[in-house]
């Protein structure tokens, strides 16, 4: 009886997978995003190293800022998306929200790590120290810890609905906590240069333009990778369902 039931499930899963395979079209959006981010990367590199003027005080090391700012931005954007996908999952109970959350968490953790590394390199040349316990740096480091905690939790719990709910709860608590952490460390001590974009006449237009092009390019790259990782999550879930139907 059990065997019959199991065979029936395998048949049903095969049928489900079959229809899913038919649905796969040529990934137009993904290809366009990939090409756009490739072109953008070329333009950004040209602008960062040749077009943008050398900073009068900081000199050449200032150019790492055009990489550092987009990476930090994507690290934070990634967590916001994890939290919103978490809310989406808790409300809709749809697995696709969870795939988006996982994909964004992996990407965000990657970019926040790069932001910490590029920031440290810049800090060593300009401040003369790899690290200070400033509000932005500390909050970024804590965000990195939350990301790693999230990824560890998800890998320990596997692909279950309980894991998706736990991840969503962690992301929601984290996103509410981050402004409070920032404010508390800010009260404690601070040193990071304040944001100078948008302040009148603080930066020459070519610098702002380079930064904007760089930000756009990295955001395009993020969207491209996000689609890839989302598809990977989907494929992994399907593979796991198939495996569990055979065992």
């Amino acid at each position, binding site marked *: 009886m059990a065997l019959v039931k199991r065979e029936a499930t395998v048949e049903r899963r095969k049928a489900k997978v079959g229809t899913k395979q038919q649905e796969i079209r040529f990934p137009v959006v993904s290809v366009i995003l990939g090409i756009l981010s490739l072109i953008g990367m070329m333009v950004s590199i040209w602008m960062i190293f040749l077009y943008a003027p050398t900073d009068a005080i900081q000199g050449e090391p200032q150019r790492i800022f055009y990489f550092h700012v987009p990476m930090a931005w994507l690290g934070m954007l990634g967590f916001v998306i994890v939290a919103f996908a978490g809310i989406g999952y808790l409300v809709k109970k749809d697995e696709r929200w969870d795939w988006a959350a996982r994909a964004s968490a992996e990407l965000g953790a990657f970019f926040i790590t790069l932001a910490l590394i590029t920031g440290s390199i810049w800090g060593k040349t300009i401040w003369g120290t790899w690290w200070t316990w400033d509000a932005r740096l500390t909050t970024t480091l804590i965000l990195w810890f939350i990301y790693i905690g999230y990824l560890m*939790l998800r890998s*320990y719990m596997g692909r279950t609905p*309980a894991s998706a709910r736990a991840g969503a*709860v962690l992301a929601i*608590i984290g996103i509410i906590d981050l402004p409070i952490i920032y404010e508390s460390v800010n009260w404690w001590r601070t040193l990071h240069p304040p944001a100078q974009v948008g302040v009148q006449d603080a930066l020459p237009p070519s610098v702002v333009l380079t930064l904007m092009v760089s930000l756009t390019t990295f955001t395009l790259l993020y969207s491209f990778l996000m689609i890839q990782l989302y598809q990977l999550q989907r494929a992994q879930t399907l593979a796991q369902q198939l495996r569990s139907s055979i065992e």
Partner: protein
Amino acid sequence: MTFLSQVLAILWKDIRCELRSKQTWTSMGLFALLVLVIFNFAFDLRVDNKAAIAPGAMWVAFVFASLLGLGRTIASEQEKGSMDRLMLCPVDRKAIYLAKLLGNMLFIGVVEVVALPIFAALFNVPFFTGELLPIVLLGTLGIATIGTLFSAIAAATQAREVLLPILVFPLIVPVVIGAVRATGTLMVPSINEPPWLGLMAAFDVIFLSVSMLMFEYVIEE
């Protein structure tokens, strides 16, 4: 049964369990004292650096001991198999969370009440002022609020002892900073100190309400 009596019933169950076994209290208390002793060696406490180090040492001891107790909250229920029965009770999930939170507050509170005089004696600092009470209360509530929620999450995994601190420590940073600075201000009064008590109170209120809403998603089967 009203909401309050449900909470009290679950809380009373936990207290009776603890009074019979006395496992959590003894291990948490001893652990807190050991951390204080280790800190004494690690920082070579003297009269001149006492004011800078003592508040930090005290709160590290409290946070570490709390984590020890918090890890047991849901895990002990699961080991005995009583979690399913608790879930079957016709009570709101918020009542379970609140009872577990109050239980944790009580356990950590007992440890703090025992550890504080010993701490004051060992480090030779005057800590018996009434002003310390709101700091300890708000700090403990903050740790317990986040800790109780995440102990339920960590209990669902194989590696709960490892996972709980990794999840909880980054999130309670504001409470730790606030509690340490507020305690430090008690020892060496300073002007222009930000409102640490207000920060801790805001943290507690925000996360108490969010955790109560989130708890049902965490323990749902």
